[in-house]
Each structure stands twice: as C-alpha cells, then as structure tokens.
C-alpha cells in the first residue's frame, strides 16, 4: 500500500479537484459522481453544487431544527465535508457487512467477523448522522455483486476497506477544525484499526505490520470505492404512467 503523507498546507479545494478528476475517469454511470458531490458541498465545480443541493433538500426533514442548528454552529464547512465523506464510507461498509450476514453464504468464521463489525459500522452510521443533522448525505444504492457471497472476494475487499479506513481517518484528523470532532473521530479510528487487525489475523496476515502507519487520502479512498463499482444507479421503482393492469 502506498499511502500518501499528510500535508497540512494542502488546501481542501485541491482534494475536491483530485476527486473530481478521479471520478471523471472511473465513474461510468455517474452514480459515484453524485455521491461524492454530496460529500463535498461548496466546491467550485458546478456539477458538485447541483448534486449537493438535491441531497440536502432530500433529507432536510429528518432531523429537528434545533439539532441541525446546533450541529451547524459547531461545525465548519470543512468538517462537514469530511464527515459527509466518512458517512458515505460507513454506509458502504455497513451495507456490505449487513448483506453478507443476511445472505449467510460465507464460512462461519468470516460471518462471525462480519456480524460484529457490521453492527459497529451501523452504529458509526447512526452516530455520524446524528452529528451531521440536516447536513447528512443520503445513502447511495449499492451493488456488491458476488463479493457478498464469495469468501475470497469478500475478505480481500474487507481487508482493503478496513486498512484504508484506518489510514483515511489518520489523514483526516489533522484536517479537522473542531477539536471536539477530533476527540470523537479518534474513538472511531481505533475501532477501525481493530477491525483491520482482526480480519488480517483471520486470514493469516500480520495484524500489525509496521511500527508506524501512514495516512491515506480521501482521493485514494475514492479511487478504491470507484474501483469496486459498488455504488450503483438507483432503480426506478415508481412511475406516473397510466397503469395497464387488468383492473
């Protein structure tokens, strides 16, 4: 894994631009584009702005005004953007592990890991949504393909996700403006590193390979997500066409 070094001087805008370029290269149907756009409000790119407005409007009624105002007052735009990215990532992980458990197609050992870690990731989703209030980004639709029913593919994906999530949180922590969010984020970070060590141990990889871990950027995580093709177009399940049912 070639993780990037943190750079305190790197402006957030360059992160957005980097992600936009990555998405343009790999996101064939635009679904990932929309999700990432919702995770990066207030950017210069027009396509990002449009999607953000739609995402925020779509979830505006889910939280009380008081909690939303409190969250807004406590968080900078930068912090919101980072947390929204994390929320998408948590949706992705929670969705995969939940599907694995429901399908029940993997070995008992791997299922046991997915059951516990899935519960953790769902708790992370709930915590991040509570903090973000009206700034939450709705969950995308996921298609995990055969990864959720194929032992080898699942483990490879889980190791990648858990390793990179731990590295990503390390990258994000020094970029957060609010110390109280940093204080909360480190409680997530240590759990993600435990997940990573656990799944590595399960398959005989060294749980702790280095004395020091390197951070990994949001761009890198976005590339990983894009490479999986897990984010899918939402199926159209309702219409306004006149029915042609038998009546």
């Amino acid at each position, binding site marked *: 894994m070639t993780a990037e070094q943190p750079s305190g001087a790197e402006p957030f805008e360059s992160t957005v631009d980097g992600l936009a370029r990555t998405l343009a290269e790999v996101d064939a149907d635009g679904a990932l584009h929309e999700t990432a756009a919702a995770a990066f409000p207030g950017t210069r790119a027009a396509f990002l702005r449009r999607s953000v407005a739609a995402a925020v409007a779509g979830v505006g009624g889910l939280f009380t005004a008081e909690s939303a105002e409190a969250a807004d007052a*406590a*968080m900078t735009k930068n912090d919101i953007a980072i947390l929204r990215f994390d929320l998408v990532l948590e949706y992705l992980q929670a969705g995969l592990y*939940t*599907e694995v*458990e*429901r*399908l*029940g*197609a993997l070995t008992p050992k791997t299922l046991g890991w997915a*059951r*516990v870690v*899935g*519960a*953790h990731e*769902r*708790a*992370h989703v*709930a*915590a*991040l949504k*509570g*903090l973000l209030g009206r700034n939450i980004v709705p969950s995308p*639709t*996921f*298609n*995990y*393909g*055969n990864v*959720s*029913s*194929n032992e080898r593919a699942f483990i490879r994906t889980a190791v990648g996700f858990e390793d990179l999530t731990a590295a990503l949180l390390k990258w994000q922590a020094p970029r957060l403006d*609010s*110390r*109280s*969010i940093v*204080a*909360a984020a480190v*409680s*997530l970070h240590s*759990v993600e590193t435990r997940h990573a060590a656990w799944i590595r141990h399960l398959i005989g990889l060294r749980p702790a390979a280095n004395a020091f871990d390197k951070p990994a950027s949001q761009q890198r995580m976005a590339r990983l997500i894009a490479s999986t093709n897990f984010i*899918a*177009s939402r*199926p*159209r*399940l*309702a*219409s*306004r*066409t*006149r*029915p*042609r*049912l*038998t*009546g």
Partner: protein
Amino acid sequence: MRRLALVGASLLIAAAAVAFPKLVQKAGDEAAGSGRAHPAEFADANGLPRAPRPAFTVGPPALLDSRESHARFAPVVRPVKARALPHPDSAPVALLTRETEEETTNIVLVLGEPRSRRGGTWVHVRLPVLPNDRTAWVPRSALGGFQFVHTHLVVDLTRFMATLFRRGRPVFRTAVGVGQTAWPTPKGEFYIRDKVSDFDDPFYGPIAFGTSARSAVLTDWPGGGFVGIHGTNQPELIPGRISHGCIRMRNDDIVRLSRLMPVGTPLTIR
C-alpha cells in the same frame, strides 16, 4: 467438578487483584530509576489542558436479529435469459428485460443463496411470467444490488382480505375485491414489482401496485395481463368478486398500504 472450577477461578482472580498493583508499582519505580512511587512525568500530566467534549459518541452496536425475516429483490441491469438451471447451457425459460410495462426498472425476487461455480455466480429468482409461480436462474452479473424488505402481503381470496405483515406481525388489514369467476385472480407466490401514482384514471384509484402475477385468461390484455393492487371508483362493490383479476381496495386503504409496503414485498395469493 463445576463448583471446584469456580472456586479455582475465584482464587486466581483474587490473587491477580492483589498482585497487579504491586507489579505496576514496581514497574513504575524501575522506570523512574529513583525509587519514587510516582515518576515526575506522571505528576506533570495534571497540568495538561482539559480535553474537549467529543462531538459525538458512538452508541452500542446493534446486532441483526438472527430470526429476522426478510426477502430480497434485485433490478435487472441488462436483458438476460433466465435459465432452468444455473448453467449457461441450460434451457432458457424466459427473457428478462430491463423495464416493465409501466416504464419502471424490472425487478426479480431473489430466492435462496447465490450459487458460485465455474463460469460465474448464479442467482435463483422468481419470474414475472406465465405460467405463474415460475422460478429460474440468472447470472449474478445481470442483476443490480440486492435490496431487502421485511414485509409480506397475503391476500385471501376466500375471505376477500389483504393483510400486510412486517417482521412477521400484521400491520395492515383490509377488505378487497378480487377477480370474477371468468377472470380469476391467480393463486401462488408473487412479488410487488412497482408503484404507479398521479396517473389520473379514477378506475384505478390514486395508486396502483404492479405485481408479478399474471392473468392466465386475459393474456392479450395491453401490457400482458399483469395483475395489480389498486384503488377504485366503485368502493361499494368491495368486498366481492368484482374485477378482471386485479385486487381492488378502497382508496384510503390503498393510500395507507402505499405508506407501509415497499416495492419488492413478497405477495402470497391463496
């Protein structure tokens, strides 16, 4: 024997409780190298700034209920031949398209576990074709992401009653109109395919659900004779055998049902 083991474990825990503080003290003394009980660095920690209150705390993890009842469906993402067996050389049963007659995404109800074998992963699905109740296999790659639902609609043709269950418990029940003798509502296992609203046709009421059930009689009906669940402009006829095969309910009932029942819900007509 069990009692002996318990006593032994208790003694071990008690011994550890006595020994642990002494070990810590000894280690601290050795680290300080001065014989002091607490190294100076420990005392300095009191002068550090107070930590901010964490912006959020993560709640307790909620494990899935192992008895959880759920069904799953998946969209058809490319036209594909559904086959009798999970093998590319198996006989085709039906062609699945990407769209329904109502211009929604075509979905299939997924049954059992995916089956992986050389040549790919296959999924057993319930089909929206005649004869009713038909199942077949499609490659996993022809389907989109699985979506899970926890509801199940049961329509009793004898009692003219529809009941929606969520996680095994009834959450909605109402009287319905069903197919007349000449155009019977088919019995079997089906699923809700899509939802149509705002179409301005009082005959169907305000909302109609498309299902995978098809009339075995009205095969030349526009759209292929799919059976729906919808409202009505003749509520006084409910309950009874009144329709061309569709399941009709009063308009306020179909509106209520539409708030409770997601697309993809399994449907049993008996």
